[in-house]
């Protein structure tokens, strides 16, 4: 009976909107931030080593490269697409850098090689998805095998490790005090990504494409071009992540960064980016990156076996995604019975 009356009563419209403060309090980012703080507190209580600045600095290495992928992935997912080839782009870019280093290339050339290969791979993905109109999940599963396959053909069970000594700066260097170059770069990119997504016309168009591509195209948004650009961006981000990871490892094998595409997608989804496109923001993804980093590092300090760690991550993902849905449903019901 109450259900029926709920359907018949006009939609509930509040007399006034929540104040900005109250809205911020209810937002996904606040929830994530609370989770992050709770984890940090739990970690510092559980392990005496957690609050050491150098340890926290070391911990950032565990997630910055993935977080850079996640920043770019956020754009792709908001347009309603997905890029599963990012980890393979890392492998191919790293292989190219290794070959260049073998040929005697210096650090600047290696850096450009990594970014260049990333750009090239992103371009190819973009052509497949935006120009030929293939579904992104199919196209990028294909290029995922293709790019890593090439790396395997080139390297086999061999290794490239003749990187010049100063190449180590990208993955092992520090900008100042405990802040690594990787971490500072990530923060810088996060600010840039935030501005581009939230303060520019391009950013607005990205949302438009993800919400309703048809409506967007009727409104004059060049849907294909937007999609093409976001795939280019992920390619370059993967190239940059490849430079950092290769520099951090000081060597290249074709198995480098296996499985990272899912970590990047997980970070974006945990950050509140709707997998169907059209919703999400950069701040959430940045906090999600910290949450994942803090959890893995904290559990690592307690020597929790990795398998327990992945169960924990899975539960957390489900919980964080289910919680707002459950809350919303309860609210709706309360509203309906009122």
């Amino acid at each position, binding site marked *: 009976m109450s259900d029926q009356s709920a359907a018949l009563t006009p939609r509930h419209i509040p007399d006034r909107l929540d104040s900005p403060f109250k809205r911020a309090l209810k937002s996904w980012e606040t929830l994530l931030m609370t989770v992050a703080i709770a984890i940090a507190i739990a970690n510092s209580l559980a392990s005496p080593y957690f609050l050491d600045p150098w340890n926290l600095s070391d911990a950032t290495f565990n997630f910055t490269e993935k977080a850079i992928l996640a920043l770019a992935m956020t754009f792709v997912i908001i347009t309603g697409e997905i890029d599963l080839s990012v980890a393979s782009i890392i492998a191919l870019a790293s292989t190219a850098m290794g070959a260049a280093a073998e040929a005697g290339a210096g650090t600047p050339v290696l850096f450009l090689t990594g970014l260049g290969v990333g750009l090239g791979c992103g371009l190819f993905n973009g052509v497949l998805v935006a120009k030929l109109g293939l579904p992104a999940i199919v196209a990028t599963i294909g290029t995922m095998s293709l790019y890593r396959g090439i790396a395997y053909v080139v390297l086999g069970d061999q290794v490239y490790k003749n990187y010049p000594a100063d190449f180590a700066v990208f*993955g092992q260097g520090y900008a100042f005090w405990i802040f690594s170059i990787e971490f500072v770069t990530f923060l810088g990119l996060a600010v840039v990504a935030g501005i581009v997504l939230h303060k520019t016309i391009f950013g607005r168009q990205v949302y438009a494409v993800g919400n309703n591509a048809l409506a967007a195209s009727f409104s004059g948004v060049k849907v294909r071009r937007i999609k093409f650009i976001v795939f280019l961006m992920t390619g370059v981000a993967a190239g940059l992540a490849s430079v950092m990871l290769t520099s951090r490892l000081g060597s290249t094998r074709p198995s480098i*960064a296996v499985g990272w595409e899912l970590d990047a997608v997980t970070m974006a989804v945990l950050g509140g980016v709707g997998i169907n496109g059209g919703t999400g923001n950069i701040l959430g993804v940045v906090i999600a990156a910290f949450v994942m980093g803090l959890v893995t590092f904290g559990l690592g300090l307690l020597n929790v076996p*990795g398998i327990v760690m992945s169960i924990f991550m899975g539960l957390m993902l489900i919980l964080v995604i289910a919680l707002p849905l459950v809350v919303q449903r309860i609210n709706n019901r309360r509203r309906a019975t009122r």
Partner: protein
Amino acid sequence: MTLFKKLIVTTAAAIALMAGPANAEAVKIALVVKTLGNGFFDAAHKGAQEAAKELGDVEIIYTGPTTSTAEAQIDVINSLIAQKVDAIAISANDKDALVPALKKAMQRGITVISWDSGVAPEGRLMHLNPSSNPLIGNMCVKLASDGLGSEKGDVAILSAASTATNQNIWIEEMKKVLPNYANVNLVDTVYGDDLADKSYRETQGLIAKYPNLKAIIAPTSVGIVAAAQAVEDAGLVGKVNVTGLGLPSEMAGHVKAGSSKAFAIWNPIDLGYSATYIAYELKAGKAEAKPDAEISIGRMGKIKLDANNEAAMADPFVYDAGNVDEFAKIF
């Protein structure tokens, strides 16, 4: 800062202070493996605990990633550095990619050694091989000779690929020690390419070609199983003895069937025991990792480092009807 936060920070600091001196007494040795949930490494952990008990003031941290990747192992290393462990003994997923992380560990005063699967020399103090090529070669021929007893007989080798470096080195070493075993008459070497069916057929070929064949040495875990199966299928149990290097879990059935009297492989328990012992001795300054240095490893005796700071632990461990079941549960 709110009162609540202040409280939490002070509690954390207090715990940090309490935990500090309590842990400082025990030497914390991390046994880092390629992946967790692998029987071989669990057995090594058992050995490490045995060593810890003997040494007294040692705490073993048994850890490793879920996936056998270098990146995941580096995350583990980073968390061990953060915990300020005293030593890391690692079986590496990647010889080179771990070097920067392990170098950092060494810079922070952690003793780093590798065992089983090694790290490039700049990333560790020393590497412990389970055995050495001469010891493996000798053990293979010895097992064949023991199986023959007093009589003299034809013996053949079933190898993996003809290009497999380690196989060829072992065969070379076997040939070197042949003069010491008068009853072994080596007649042939065939290659099964580490494929079960090809190894099986090559064994059938050997049986047909050499009627006086008394033993087959297969220094490969795939070949030895296929050869034992072929001998059983040909009804030659008791006449042809299959030996070499194999895994207890795969060979237990064939030992029971009688096609293999005994075979060898390294003992993971001994390996974990020795790695722990060496890490402890190096940390305590009782031994030094430099070429020609000797390190004593408890019940395993002594090892001697070569020019690359590598050492061989011992003869491969022999498995026969008496112990194969026990180890088959492990690996």
